[in-house]
């Protein structure tokens, strides 16, 4: 592993845990089957729900007959929209929609029409899921099918997906006209102009645990919801808004969560419908989405395209760029599309002072748009693919072309064309490190030799910048509440939450270091909105920076208190004291000491001996918001072997150089990056949630929606550049980057491998059939 560090970590105490690959606290229970996932919970009287979903992408509902289903023994109720839609008190407006954007009519259950194949129209509640599913098949819905709108690129002129808002355009943003004119003037005079349109296909998040919830109400109308969630507080806020309840009437619980990847950031219509059903029937209701429902009715992402243009001078230095984005919001979209964010981040790691953009998103009769790991990532995909197209057209090596344009240390602080500020970033260093990890010249020789034997190897490179822990709106803050119990044990309450990000371990590392105690004495609790204050949970690569920042600052306040009390009791100067291994002692004189436990006992149980005026107990809380975006950067390289007979792509090597600042846990950082990279490889090679020409979902099993397996993946080789951020621990986010940078990296490698055939590689996925057909088309063209 390569490592370079700019400056040391900023912790006031010797870091004994931060930076170490320690055993995860989560593992003993998860490895032995003692986790507590959504479906593991049960309540007396609990009913099981199954949805009736539309087989049509677009149809009028003329009638619903539930008679036969209601007659089945064990069926408690069958609800349609007419029965339960009135339970919601307020519009179901997504919390991610800006106030300026019109929001369609979202109903818990569709009542007048259906807007995608999978749209829920009724719910059966039964004694168990078997009976519920059987009975769901007996519900008869009379549909009047209509022609669906399926192509976002032509949706502007098609019938309205949501007639009530009067347009299929979700939103449009664009640079001011003068900026555009300015940029076009540069294009008109440029030595070289490179233009390419890149199309990406619909992806699914596909966490191994599907969506699900258990909803129940008390006699006082208090709502408790167990939810498979990334952000219990976000869900509670949304439920309170939709059902017109006070915040203190809603409790959301999410203990172990089997993956989220963005999908579980915001509750969807199905969750609201189940809560309505629970309210209506007066009993706890459980719904665990089955995999087919997940494949057709959970949110999708990444059906999008962009025309990218670069103007270069004669030396390959970028003079201007433009990014014209179009995306598919599907039917019931939970955010209005990543276009604005993608347009904002597009300039990425390069010095691009002149830049114009436009971004548009359209509704279609497909499953709604949701968040998926790095929702705005198409900026990196499009930019890095077209940088390689440019390198080829300009006849400049792809590494060299980037080198001439990357932002260096000398350029910082750097302000991007869209107003973002970069400081403490290292895209150039990462690119040099990752290219240094591979002998590029030797690879080029090997590639030339292999080609003579009919074997097509390719190398791909990408560089990117990621806006992590963006302190915007409700995502700005996290709180940490830490208490040292009278026993000396430490409880950390956090709202970061975890769906595999290991925050039970990483926050404990931070707190144990700051307090100078044994990590075994530190327990992190999260996932219960009744336990800790508001915070959005996980999303936007924010946990280490914002949650970790809050934990760092709360622990420092608590350390101050421990030392103040100990100094008073030990009759020593506070500045002379330190804490190590749970012992407070005079620096250099470990014989004169007392334990943190003794301090804690005093703080709670011998309050008359505390310094005058001091608040008893040992508790601290800190709510933290970073002052701006914390930028993470990385550069990846991969080597592929493309079989031109079968179109199969084998990834031979994958090299990473990343800079997420101070690493709390290298295993967690590398685990996050690796998971993202493999999702990115899957997205570029196989994953495709496609529809037929009537809007029927074609990927309805895991044999249709293909995800990478253990036998498909390369060993990922890591280099780390450590440039601490200006946040309390020096951390930067690391959760999404792998998924953002991997697709263009592998696309560029495939394009490089197939360069003798001149294949565009601009319409994804680059699946075996795509490659074979493209090769055949190229052959025909050449003949």
């Amino acid at each position, binding site marked *: 592993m390569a490592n370079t560090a700019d400056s040391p970590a900023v912790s006031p105490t010797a870091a004994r845990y931060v930076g170490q*690959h320690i*055993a*995860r606290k*989560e*593992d*003993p229970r*998860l*490895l*032995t*089957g*003692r*986790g507590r*996932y959504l*479906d*593991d919970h049960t309540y007396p009287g609990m009913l099981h729900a199954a949805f009736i979903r539309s087989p049509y992408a677009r149809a009028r509902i003329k009638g619903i007959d539930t008679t036969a289903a209601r007659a089945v023994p064990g069926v408690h109720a069958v609800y349609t929209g007419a029965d339960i839609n009135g339970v919601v008190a307020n519009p179901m407006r997504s919390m991610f929609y800006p106030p300026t954007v019109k929001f369609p009519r979202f109903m818990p259950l569709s009542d007048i029409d259906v807007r995608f194949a999978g749209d829920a129209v009724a719910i059966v509640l039964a004694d*168990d899921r*078997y009976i519920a599913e059987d009975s769901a098949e007996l519900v008869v819905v009379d549909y009047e099918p209509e022609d669906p709108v399926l192509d976002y690129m032509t949706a502007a002129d098609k019938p309205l997906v949501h007639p009530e808002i009067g347009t299929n355009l979700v939103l449009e943003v664009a640079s001011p006209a003068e900026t555009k004119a300015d940029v076009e003037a540069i294009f008109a005079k440029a030595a070289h102009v490179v233009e390419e349109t890149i199309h990406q296909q619909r992806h699914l998040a*596909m*966490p*191994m*645990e*599907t969506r699900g919830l258990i909803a129940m109400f008390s006699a006082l109308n208090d709502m408790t919801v167990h939810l498979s969630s990334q952000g219990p507080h976000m869900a509670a806020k949304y439920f309170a808004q939709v059902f017109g309840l006070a915040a203190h009437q809603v409790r959301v619980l999410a203990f*172990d*969560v*089997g*993956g989220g*990847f963005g999908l579980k950031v915001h509750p969807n219509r199905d969750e609201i419908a189940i809560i309505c059903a629970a309210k209506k029937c007066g009993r706890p209701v459980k719904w665990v989405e*089955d*995999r087919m429902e997940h494949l057709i009715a959970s949110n999708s992402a990444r059906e999008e395209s962009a025309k990218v243009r670069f103007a270069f001078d004669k030396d390959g230095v970028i003079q201007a760029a433009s990014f014209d984005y179009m995306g598919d919001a599907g039917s019931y979209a939970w955010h209005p599309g990543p276009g604005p964010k993608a347009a904002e981040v597009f300039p990425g790691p390069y010095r691009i002072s002149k830049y114009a953009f436009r971004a548009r998103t359209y509704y279609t009769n497909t499953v709604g748009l949701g968040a998926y790991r790095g929702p705005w990532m198409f900026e990196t995909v499009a930019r890095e693919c077209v940088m390689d197209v440019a390198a080829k057209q300009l006849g400049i090596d792809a590494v060299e072309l980037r080198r001439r344009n990357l932002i260096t240390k000398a350029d910082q602080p750097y302000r991007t064309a869209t107003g973002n500020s970069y400081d403490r970033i290292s895209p150039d260093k990462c690119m040099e490190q990752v290219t240094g990890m591979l002998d590029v010249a030797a690879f080029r020789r090997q590639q030339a030799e292999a080609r003579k034997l009919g074997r097509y190897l390719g190398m791909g490179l990408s560089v990117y910048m990621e806006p992590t822990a963006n302190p915007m709106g409700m995502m700005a803050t996290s709180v940490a509440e830490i208490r040292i119990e009278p026993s000396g044990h430490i409880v950390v309450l956090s709202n970061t939450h*975890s*769906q*595999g*990000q*290991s925050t039970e371990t990483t926050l404990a590392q931070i707190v144990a270091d700051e307090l100078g105690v044994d990590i075994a004495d530190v327990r992190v609790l999260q996932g219960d909105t009744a336990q800790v204050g508001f915070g959005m949970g996980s999303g936007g690569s924010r946990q280490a920076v914002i949650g970790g920042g809050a934990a760092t600052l709360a622990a420092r306040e608590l350390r101050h208190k421990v030392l103040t009390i100990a100094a008073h009791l030990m009759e020593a100067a506070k500045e002379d004291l330190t804490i190590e291994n749970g012992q407070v002692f005079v620096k250099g004189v470990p014989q004169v000491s007392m334990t943190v436990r003794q301090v804690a006992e005093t703080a709670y149980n011998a309050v008359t001996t505390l310094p005058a005026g001091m608040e008893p107990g040992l508790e601290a809380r800190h709510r933290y918001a970073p002052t701006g975006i914390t930028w993470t950067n990385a550069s990846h390289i991969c080597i592929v072997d493309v079989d031109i007979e079968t179109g199969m792509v084998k990834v031979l090597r994958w090299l990473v150089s990343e800079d997420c600042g101070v690493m709390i846990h290298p*295993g*967690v950082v*590398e*685990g996050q990056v*690796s*998971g*993202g*990279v*493999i*999702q990115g490889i899957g997205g570029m090679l196989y994953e495709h949630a496609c529809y037929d020409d009537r809007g029927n979902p074609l990927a309805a*099993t*895991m*044999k249709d929606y293909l*995800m*990478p*397996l*253990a*036998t498909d*993946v390369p*060993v*990922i080789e890591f280099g780390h550049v450590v440039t601490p951020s200006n946040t309390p621990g020096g951390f930067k986010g690391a959760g999404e980057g*792998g998924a953002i940078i991997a697709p263009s990296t592998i696309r560029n490698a495939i394009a490089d491998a197939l360069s003798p055939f001149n294949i565009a590689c601009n319409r994804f996925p680059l699946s075996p059939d795509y490659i074979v057909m493209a090769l055949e088309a190229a052959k025909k063209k050449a003949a």
Partner: protein
Amino acid sequence: MSDHTIQTKINGNVVKKTVAARKTLADFLRVDCSLTGTHIGCEHGVCGACTVMVDGLAVRSCLMLAVQADGAEIRTVEGVAKEDGTLHRVQQALQEEHGLQCGFCTPGFVMTLVSLVERKEPIDEEEMKAALSGHICRCTGYQGILRAVKKLTATPAKA
């Protein structure tokens, strides 16, 4: 729908229960036996999360009916570590190599790996890796799992 009384041995304990003919082994274990460590990820035999051992072999419990397990000896993820909490070397290797994140798919991986390391015939890394191609993990990119496999095939074969 007919009901049937079945008797199985689960993690060493004799269990006798009456179940509906169509109930899957996965639901029987989770709902009737409260062994919720076995997870259901797809219910169509692809993801491998629900893998348990039936008479020593790794089986997808979503594709087997509880009545088919009548008379069988079943081992679930709850029955792998020692009673004092000492982890099985498969579990230990996964922990040391950061082979899990969210942990939802993990019980399935554990059971397949346990069935392989405990079988009589020796197993090499490639064979073990091939067996894992019947499991999907969406978090780790398999990196830590494959390091654990390497470690397990390098260790002398004893449980």
